[in-house]
């Protein structure tokens, strides 16, 4: 397609990124249709709606969506919009309800989306209202290891194909145990930054020893966690990999150590080691030896707006993003360990998290540099490691040679271009699944 493409915003050879994509309202509006209207979006977790008739209020982009589990246990993603005038049916964050009544005129829907009751159906509507045509708008739903995804696109590929070989890595956190995971949260807050900046930051380990030095230093002093330096990062055996828009980083070390997680300290290390030992046979059965012992998913994003696991960057206009922080815990982990991970996760991330609070002014100013006349004339530079990525004998996806690299970020903006220049899913390339999924774990647990 070359120059005929509407969006040509990143030069892969130089890593220069056109700043207009972070602030232009018209581009943002098109993103809502061409990216958020098409992609499989993370919207919730099965554990947030554990019982029949439970619901959880969430978003697909800016569209309010009710995630429901109907009376027969089936999941639905329903646009939270009465088909009459458009009022929201649900105004609560979560709950249990067989029906949703519109507070405007009393139209009432079942939790599978069917319109059930309309006041004045005969007296006012002369029995002329087609109930079947006025169900709530429903998105396609599927789950991966308990995480609920939904898409508006009728022509979207399966969720399994959408995740592709990214799942080979995601399994090492989200699909480890037979017992599955439990989601707690979200903490919600509004960040004055473009959503893409916080997504591309997930593969930016280059910023960690600068942006988060103060947090790493006190945690090393108070909790005995390892020190953090640029040198450690540059010489790390960890890797970056990119699949279908999903940017992943992973630890690649054959030392069979417990996974690095929130809450690790000299005092709690024993808990993590015991848990690692006690679950090792099960994890090897589920994931195979290589993934169980050597590969540990690190920071990552799931296209378009999943940030470090099941956490969401919800767009609220080009300059605003509502951030939702959740923590996921293995259901059958010992309570003492769950507590340590939960508290560690709150201390590090979320609105008040020591690490996360230091990110936002960086992201905001990166976004806002696209406003002033002189600044916007100079493109963002994502040139680090150009030409140093490719296929790997052991690992699926496009693997960067070095851990500190902007390769995933360049590929993220190229994926963005693919969606924005496509007329439909037929124009959006997907890498076929090539990885060997050793072990018993499947898409659904």
């Amino acid at each position: 397609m070359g120059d005929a493409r509407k969006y040509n915003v990143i030069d892969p050879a130089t890593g220069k990124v056109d700043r207009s994509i972070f602030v232009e309202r018209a581009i943002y509006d098109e993103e809502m249709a061409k990216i958020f209207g098409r992609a499989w979006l993370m919207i919730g977790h099965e554990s947030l709606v554990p019982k029949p008739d439970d619901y959880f209020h969430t978003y697909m982009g800016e569209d309010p969506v009710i995630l429901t589990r109907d009376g027969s246990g089936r999941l639905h993603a329903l646009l939270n919009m009465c088909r009459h005038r458009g009022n929201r049916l649900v105004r609560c964050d979560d709950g249990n309800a067989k029906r949703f009544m519109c507070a405007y005129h009393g139209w009432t829907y079942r939790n599978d989306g069917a319109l059930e009751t309309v006041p004045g159906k005969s007296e006012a509507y002369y029995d002329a209202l087609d109930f079947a045509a006025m169900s709530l708008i429903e998105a396609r739903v599927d789950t991966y290891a308990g995480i609920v995804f939904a898409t508006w696109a009728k022509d979207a590929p399966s969720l399994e194909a959408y995740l592709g070989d990214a799942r080979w890595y995601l399994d090492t956190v989200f699909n480890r145990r037979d017992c599955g995971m439990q989601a707690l949260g979200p903490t919600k807050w509004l960040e004055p930054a473009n959503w893409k900046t916080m997504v591309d930051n997930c593969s930016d380990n280059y910023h960690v020893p600068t942006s988060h030095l103060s947090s790493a230093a006190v945690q090393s002093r108070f909790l005995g966690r390892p020190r953090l330096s640029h040198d450690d990062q540059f010489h790390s055996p960890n890797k970056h990999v990119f699949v279908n828009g999903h940017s992943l980083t992973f630890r690649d070390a054959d030392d069979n150590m417990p996974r690095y997680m929130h809450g690790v300290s000299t005092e709690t290390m024993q808990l993590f080691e015991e848990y690692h030992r006690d679950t090792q046979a099960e994890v090897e059965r589920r994931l195979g030896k290589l993934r169980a012992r050597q590969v540990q998913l690190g920071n990552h994003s799931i296209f378009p707006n999943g940030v470090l696991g099941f956490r969401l960057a919800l767009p609220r206009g080009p300059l605003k993003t509502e951030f939702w922080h959740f923590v996921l815990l293995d259901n059958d982990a010992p309570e003492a360990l769950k507590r340590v991970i939960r508290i560690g996760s709150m201390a590090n991330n979320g609105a008040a998290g020591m690490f996360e609070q230091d990110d936002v002014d960086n992201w905001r100013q990166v976004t806002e540099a696209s406003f002033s006349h002189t600044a916007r004339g100079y493109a963002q530079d994502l040139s680090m490691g150009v030409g140093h990525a490719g296929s790997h004998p052991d690992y699926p996806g496009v693997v960067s040679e070095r851990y500190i690299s902007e390769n995933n970020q360049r590929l993220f903006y190229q994926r963005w271009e693919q969606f924005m220049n496509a007329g439909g899913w037929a124009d959006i390339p997907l890498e076929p699944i090539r990885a060997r999924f050793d072990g018993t774990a499947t898409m659904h647990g």
Partner: protein
Amino acid sequence: MPTEAVPTTVTLTPQQALWLELMPFYTREAWLLDERKLREWLTLFTDDVLYFMPRRKNVPRREAHRELTAPGDLAILEEDKRYLEMRVARLDSGMAWAEDPPSRTRHMVGNLEAETLANGEVKARTAFLVYRSHLETDHQLLSGYREDVLRRVDGAWRIARRTIVLDANVLLDKNLSVFL
């Protein structure tokens, strides 16, 4: 007209005496926070303090018991003394970017109600409005209440448990890097 004799002493109920003792405690705390004397502020807490900020959900009025997330759920903050000390030490590093340059804050604390518990500790509730101004034009008004359990340690009141409840569902600020 003959003037009536003015009493020279006022008798306080124990409740009023407690109120008069605690209000300056909270006023002092507010000044310590706004003047960024955070190491001194830390001494107001017991070593076993729990500094807790639950999430606040939209739930139907008849399910008000679910509005605040329970202990054990994901909260906004659930800190012990060591984590609070870690946060203060972080600010002293010169590289805690969320607060360097620091926010300008004003803690207005009032509506004090206090009651003595059976074990001699005191439950004290206060409402707050905290104004935060950061960098050039960022500003935010944080409204909420605190419910503290106060304990006398060596003759001085110390906060043994603080629950902070914000009047917000989606926090409107870019981060929560100031203490409440």
